[in-house]
């Protein structure tokens, strides 16, 4: 009878269990990535593209700081994180520390956003026209090239992965030259897509790209990037070809171009490269003293460094000038500007057409309050000087430029034991 009771009990329980269905859990806090990759709708495309534009700015501060510090444009001092003035100045870099892992991961996160969109555009059942799909593909692939170039700038000869669509089956690392070729090709195919993209994008374009808000004008941005890539390849004829289709304008405003924009509202980001004047050791960017001392007299670009009320000493580094390129926490940060295109134009013409090179250099110099260069003096040094002051604190140009001209040895070392960095290590988690 006892056994019988127990049997009954177990049966009852089993029946009760079976009848108690639990519903599958759902994520209540956001859309799943498959909702984009499996079938992107018109509304989702706008959100996903806005996400790409937004994500491009993620960890921008870390990347620009890291490249500017190794290029001795300025010192980044942060009392709670001494690695800014240790690793980056001694040149002994760690492959699992924020200065490489954070920018690296963030750029690839943007690439992931783009790859999900590309997959979604393949699978979409929404009523997009072919032109709209081409326009979208052209735009996101252009940005993908920009993001990969940002990583390549850090990794240099270490190379980068370019095929990263499948997290479980990533493509190989391409060496520096191969990666540049890949980017050049990616930009070219994006330009083709843009040319088939019809009159308008099927989504809004943020203010930082206001000058490039149609497939046709966005092509000018694409070509500007292509010119930069070609310059890094040392292929000057191609630089000139791309510049022709870019927004290069010898009589235009030097600041015309594409920008990262910032705001303080909601989930938007503030400009990470802004600190107030006279900030303390807690968080400050101190211009490298050589930036001020190396400047030609009368070069008003030196105002990008402002004299502090009092010098600041930290970690055996003493400086008197704050970096003052971004003057508020919502100031935009240039992605690529007419000033850089002019200098690329000058560089590419340096040997082929020195007069044209001088013309371009003089546009930049005159804007900086300086007189024309002496005819026949536009050489590598001249290009490097103008680029140093024109593109100061805008993305590590100084370091990249000295590297591509094989002149990292020119960098000033401030303390015994300091050294130069040729490239950042591949993050440990890449398991290379």
């Amino acid at each position, binding site marked *: 009878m006892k056994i019988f009771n127990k049997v009954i009990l177990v049966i009852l329980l089993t029946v009760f269990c079976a009848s108690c269905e639990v519903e599958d859990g759902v994520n209540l806090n956001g859309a799943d990535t498959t909702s984009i990759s499996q079938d992107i709708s018109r509304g989702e495309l706008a959100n996903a593209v806005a996400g790409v534009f937004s994500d491009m700015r993620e960890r921008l501060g870390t990347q620009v700081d890291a490249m500017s510090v190794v290029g001795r444009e300025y010192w980044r001092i942060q009392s709670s994180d001494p690695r800014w003035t240790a690793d980056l100045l001694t040149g002994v870099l760690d492959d699992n520390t924020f200065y490489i892992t954070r920018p*690296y991961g963030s750029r*690839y996160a943007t690439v992931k956003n783009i790859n999900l969109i590309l997959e979604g555009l393949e699978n979409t059942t929404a009523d997009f026209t072919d032109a709209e799909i081409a326009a979208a593909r052209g735009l996101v692939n252009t940005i993908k090239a920009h993001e990969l170039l940002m990583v390549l700038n850090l990794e240099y000869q270490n190379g980068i992965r370019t095929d990263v669509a499948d997290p479980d089956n990533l493509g190989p690392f391409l060496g520096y030259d191969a990666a540049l070729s890949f980017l050049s090709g990616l930009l070219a195919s994006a330009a083709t897509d843009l040319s088939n993209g019809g009159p308008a994008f099927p989504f809004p374009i943020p203010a930082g790209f206001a000058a490039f808000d149609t497939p046709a004008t966005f092509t000018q941005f694409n070509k500007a990037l292509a010119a930069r890539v070609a310059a890094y390849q040392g292929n000057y004829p191609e630089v000139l070809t791309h510049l022709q289709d870019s927004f290069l304008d010898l009589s235009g405003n030097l600041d015309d171009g594409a920008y990262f924009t910032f705001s303080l509202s909601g989930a938007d980001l503030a400009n990470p490269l802004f600190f107030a004047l006279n900030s303390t050791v807690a968080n400050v960017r101190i211009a490298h003293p050589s930036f001020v001392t190396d400047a030609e007299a009368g070069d008003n670009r030196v105002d990008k460094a402002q004299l502090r009320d009092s010098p600041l000493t930290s970690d055996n580094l003493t400086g008197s000038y704050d970096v003052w390129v971004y003057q508020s926490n919502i100031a935009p940060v240039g992605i690529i500007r007419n000033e850089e295109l002019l200098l690329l134009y000058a560089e590419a013409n340096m040997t082929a057409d020195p007069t044209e090179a001088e013309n371009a250099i003089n546009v930049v110099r005159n804007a900086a309050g300086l007189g024309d260069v002496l005819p026949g003096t536009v050489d590598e040094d001249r290009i490097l000087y103008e680029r140093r002051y024109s593109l100061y604190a805008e993305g590590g140009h100084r370091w990249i430029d000295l590297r591509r001209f094989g002149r990292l040895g020119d960098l000033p070392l401030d303390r015994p034991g300091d050294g130069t960095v040729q490239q950042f290590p591949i993050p440990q988690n890449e398991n290379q």
Partner: protein
Amino acid sequence: MKQKLPGKIFLLLIVLLPVLALAQGTVTGKITDGTTGQPLPAANVVVKGTTLGTTSDFDGNYELTLDAFPATLVFSSLGYAPLEREVTQATELNVTLSESATGLDEVVVTGLATSVKRSNAANAVASVSAEELAGVTPPQTLDGALQGKFAGALITRASGAPGGGISVKLRGVTSVNGNAQPLYIVDGVYVNNSSIFAPGLNEVSNAAGGGASPSSNQTQDNPSNRIADLNPDDIQSVEILKGASAAAIYGARAAAGVVIITTKKGKAGKTKVSFSQAIGYNQVLNLRGQRRFTEDIAESGFGAGQGALFVDARDNGRLVDYEKEIFGEDGFISNTGVNVSGGSENTQFYAGFTNNEEDGIVKGTGYDKKSVRLNIDHQLFDNRAKLSLTTNYINSSADRGFFNNDNSGTTLGVALTSLPPWAQLFPDENGNYPDNPYGASNPLQTRDLITNNESTNRMILGGTFDATLYQTDRSNLKVILRGGVDYYELVTTAIFPKELQFQKISNGGVNGLTAQGTTENKDANYSAFLVHNYFTDNDINFTTQAGVTKQTFSQNTIRNVATDLIASETNLDQGANISVSQFRLEQEDFGFFVQEEVNYQDKIIGTLGLRGDKSSNNGDANKLFYYPKASAAFNLHNFDFWTIDFLSQFKVRGAYGEAGNFAPNGALFTAYNNSLIDGQVGIVVPNTLGDPDITPERQKELELGFDAGLFDNKVLLEFSYYKKSVDDLILQANNIPSSGFDFRWSNAGNLENKGVEIALNASPIYSESFSWDTGVIFFKNKSEVTKLDVDPFDTGGFGTGLGTFRIEEGKSVTQIVGNDENGNIVVLGDAEPDFQMTFTNNLKYKDFTLSFLWHWKKGGDNINLSNLLFDFGQTSDDYDDFTLDPTGTLSNGDFRISSFFAGNAAPFVEDASYLRLREIGLYYDVPGEFLERVFDGYVSGIKVGLSGNNLINIFDYNSYDPEVSNFGSNALSTGVEVTPFPSSKRYLFHVSVNF
């Protein structure tokens, strides 16, 4: 004749036996308390070997009708030694029960609905009584009060900030990225122990860089954990099931152990009123100290001109010890408690009110808690059924200051690191604070003007109905229905007014920030059990239980941050920029269990059980995961062959069980986060790739041990060895970052903990006027990652240059690795202590009681980054000493800095051993005759006393306290220190009166 006598007796028996056997009769009597002589209500009287029994009434009287004589009656009551008496006929039998000295007779929980006498338990279930929990000195929080009270736990206070934030790890680390905190059950109600971070803090401190992630809920702002809400004064007993071998029946949530809390209940009888008041203060436990500055040091460390400023300040007596200025407050403590209990034969109640107020050692910090409890028990249907209701309302408010890691120089802790004593930061006569030229914030201003408050309104309700469905001599069947709700609303408020140095626009600030987080949490649990008891003729007892449980969890957190504020307004709509985020969690679990327990004459006790669980948090919500258990205990001293006299008790026991641990919420999904640019809302991928097929972690634990009682159980020795493995470890492991995801969830490893626990309790002296109880506990644990399917990864630190935890196959789970001086990654330490020991003593002389608890943690390393930050700020107290550099050439400060620059993390890993006098209390009971004379019987007891926490601390650790955790209570990585809120010691005076 002689030869025939047996025959005659035999004949006589033949005749009489049926008469005896059939004789029905009633035994009546009175049960009294041996100590007080008072009647003992609600004591149990049971016919041995049957379920037949009754309980004594209000006046201690009982009446029991027996079907047969002779019979053995067992008299028992909680806290008293049981008594057996044989009766041969209907009679009056008065008995006196004396209080149990050994604790062997107390019951411990083994199933969800049943309990077993400790002497029969197959596990070393730790129990902490009300007296042990809060009797020596009143604890601030329940989990803190468990420290040092039982074997097998590593309990760490994350910071000294008032209001909790405590990590409890039972028998080692049981999960790396999943929940590693035990499940808390109070009177059958599953109580939520979330640590929910407040918005606004990370926005200012930027400690987590890109932002605290709501899905991982890991921050460096030290939110308190919600167990802090429970009032220790209401607790009757705490039982701790330390691993799966004891907790398997709790199934899928029990892998980190279960803490079962029983609150106080009323007893039938005269209404008792008791009032207690404690007042006192707390003080910083230890200060780091100041660097001995000279003009040269000031000049070289702080730059040109600073030497003169130092000299000027020194000569004019204006040097300020800012450490004392910030941490030097004596925080006032007041604990008031009133409780009333009593009841009639059918209905008993316990009502309690407690008000705790405790100021912190930093001005403006403190913790207030009000707790109201009403517990009611009602017997109905002729005592065949009982309804128990427990209700608890808690209102708490904690002001926690602003500490720990930051990347903006704004926390009080980080601001102090670079602040020299000649800085002049006091406000002028108009209350304007000068900007701190040595850092981003003026810590005095920050301390005085900010708000960082957590306040809770919480209601915990539980109800149990148990009824005997049928009862015969040999068997009975009970049904138990239970339900509980834990509801709370947590409001966090963070206010950083615009006057703050770092909020000023001219300093790059956002012109004031106000933030509010609101969490509504509702957890509910329901269960139904059937328990069947059956006694055989030869005294074998079968207890069968089966039941079903259902739990639902619902949490909704809305976080708002507003910046650029209007004047001194703090409402969220009074700012120019407002950001909102929301995090929701819904979960539903369902489980069933069956358990069979066989007790063979208290000699062999065996248990088999099985639990099945499913949950909406699993990849397949309707897949049942099964968790079996089996255990056996052999009371060798109850066997006839046992002849070792001095061993009055000897039990050998073994238990095996399995339990689960859910994947953290969100681990199943790869869900977009939101973004905004130029007013356009967007979606961006998260940094962690989800795994839709994730399964719960499974813990398998084997525990073996013995309990021995020597010399009439005056000495009790408990020895346990355990080995527990955790399979299918859920890891948020590193992922190849070029995939777009820095981390990915997966079931990707196994770990193992092994350890021993030894507890020795003795009552060497017991006399009328003097008694001495003493206890020693020793325990140690070793862990190992036995399998890892992903590459080794770092977690809970700041990289190998500063020391980090690393999960690596074949290594300790809590190993700390870092670069050595040659740049190789080596093991620098381990957070796991070598062992822990505690020493408890209770001395009673006449009306005086002295109790104290020493706690020794030997070994276990911390990553101490405070030192380095103070070095960089040129202010560390030992900067100019020469004790670290093996070559003796560099001062300590220079040595640490140069080590850092050389990438050598070794100097930052420090031994965190300590020996501390956790609790001490001296009490005096005013003699009863005196009270009788003065108060005419209205007052039954007055007790006065002095007590303290952490009064003596011995450690060689180079900061405030080795017990610290920058990453709060939930992470694997307790023991990382970055400028925390220092710990404190407390001094209290008590008076309590019983009416």
